[in-house]
C-alpha cells in the first residue's frame, strides 16, 4: 500500500456519528471539569483556605494560646521568640502564596487552548510547575510548623517541668537527657518523613506522569532545533 492510498482510505472514512444540535448541547451541559479547570479551582479554594488558616494561626498565637496558658498557670507565658516564629511563618506562607498566584495568573493569561500546540504545551507545563512548587511550599510549611511546634513544645515543657520541680539543671543526668532528645527526634523524623513521603507520592501519582508526558511531547516538537 502506498502513501497516496492512505489518503484515499482516509477520505473514505466518513463520520456516521452525526450529532444534532440537541445532542451537542446535552454534551455541553454534562461536561465535567478538566485538569486545568480543577487546578484553577484548587488554587481559588487554596486561597480561601489559606486566609482562614492564617487567621486561625494568628488567633491561636495571640489569643487562644495565651488564654489557655493563663488558665493553666498565671506564671506561664509564651516566649516572644515563639510568637515571632509563628508570625514569621504566616507572613512567609502568605507572601510566597501571593507570589505564586500572581505568577500563575500571568502564565494563564499568556495564551489559552486556542494558541498553537507548542505554546499551549509550554503554558500547561508552566502552570503545572507552579502548582507543583506551591504544593511543595505548602507541604514544607506544614512540616516545618509541625516540626518547630513539636521541638519548641518539648523544650518549653522540659524547662517548665524542671522549673516546677525545682531541680537544678546540673543534676539532670546527661544520658537521660540525650535519650529523651533522641526519642523525640526519632518520633519527629518518622512522622514528618512519613507525611512527606505519602503526600509526595500522591502528588507524583496524580501529576508526575502527566508532566513527564507533556515534556516529552514538547521536546519532540522542538527536536529539530537540537
Amino acid at each position: 500500500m502506498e502513501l497516496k492510498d492512505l489518503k484515499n482510505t482516509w477520505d473514505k472514512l466518513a463520520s456516521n456519528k452525526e450529532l444534532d444540535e440537541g445532542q451537542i448541547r446535552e454534551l455541553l451541559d454534562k461536561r465535567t471539569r478538566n485538569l486545568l479547570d480543577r487546578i484553577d479551582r484548587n488554587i481559588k479554594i487554596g486561597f480561601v483556605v489559606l486566609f482562614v488558616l492564617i487567621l486561625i494561626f494568628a488567633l491561636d498565637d495571640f489569643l487562644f494560646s495565651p488564654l489557655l496558658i493563663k488558665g493553666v498557670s498565671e506564671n506561664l507565658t509564651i516566649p516572644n521568640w515563639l510568637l515571632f516564629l509563628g508570625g514569621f511563618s504566616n507572613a512567609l506562607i502568605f507572601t510566597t502564596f501571593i507570589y505564586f498566584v500572581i505568577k500563575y495568573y500571568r502564565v494563564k493569561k499568556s495564551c489559552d487552548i486556542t494558541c498553537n500546540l507548542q505554546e499551549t504545551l509550554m503554558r500547561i507545563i508552566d502552570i503545572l510547575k507552579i502548582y507543583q512548587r506551591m504544593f511543595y511550599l505548602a507541604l514544607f510549611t506544614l512540616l516545618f510548623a509541625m516540626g518547630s511546634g513539636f521541638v519548641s513544645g518539648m523544650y518549653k515543657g522540659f524547662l517548665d517541668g524542671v522549673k516546677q520541680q525545682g531541680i537544678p539543671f546540673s543534676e539532670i543526668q546527661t544520658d537521660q537527657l540525650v535519650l529523651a532528645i533522641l526519642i523525640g527526634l526519632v518520633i519527629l523524623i518518622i512522622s514528618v518523613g512519613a507525611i512527606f513521603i505519602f503526600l509526595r507520592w500522591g502528588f507524583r501519582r496524580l501529576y508526575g506522569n502527566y508532566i513527564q508526558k507533556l515534556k516529552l511531547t514538547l521536546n519532540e516538537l522542538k527536536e529539530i532545533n537540537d
Partner: protein
Amino acid sequence: MEKEFLQIIQKNQGIVHKVCSIYCDIEEDRKDLFQEIVAQLWKSYPSFRKESKFSTWMYRVALNTAITSFKKNKRRPDQKRLSYENFQIAEEKYDTETEENIKLLNRAIAQLTGIEKSIMLLFLENKKYEEIADITGITQNYVRVKMNRIKKKLKKLMVTQD
C-alpha cells in the same frame, strides 16, 4: 451565540470525530475526548476573532485538547481495545481492499507518537505546510522534515505489515 455555536459545531463535527478517532482506541475515551473538545471549543468561542479560518481554529483547539488531555490509565474490565473495525467510523460497508487498507491505516497510525499523529492527521486532511505550521507552532521547514520522517516510518511499517 449558543445557537450559532451549536450550528457551526454540528456542521464541522467531522473534524472533532477524526481527532478523537486518531487519538483514542477506546470508545469510552473517544466519547470523553469528544465532550472535552466541544467544551473547550465553547469556552474559547468568544475569543475566536476570525483572523484564521474556522477549521484551522477548530483543529488547533481539538489537537491541543487531545494531546494535552489528562487521562488516568484506568481500564474498566468491560472495556476492550478497539480493533480496526471500530476505527472505521462510518457504518458503510467497504470492499475487502478498502477494509484491508483501513486496517493497515489504523495499525500504522497507532505506531505514531502524539505529535506525529497530529501532523499526519493534518496531512491526510490535505492541509498545506503553512497551515500545519500555524496549528502546531513549528516552522514550515520543520513540518517538511517531520512529514518526511513520518512518511518513511509509515512506509516501513506498511512494508512490514504487507
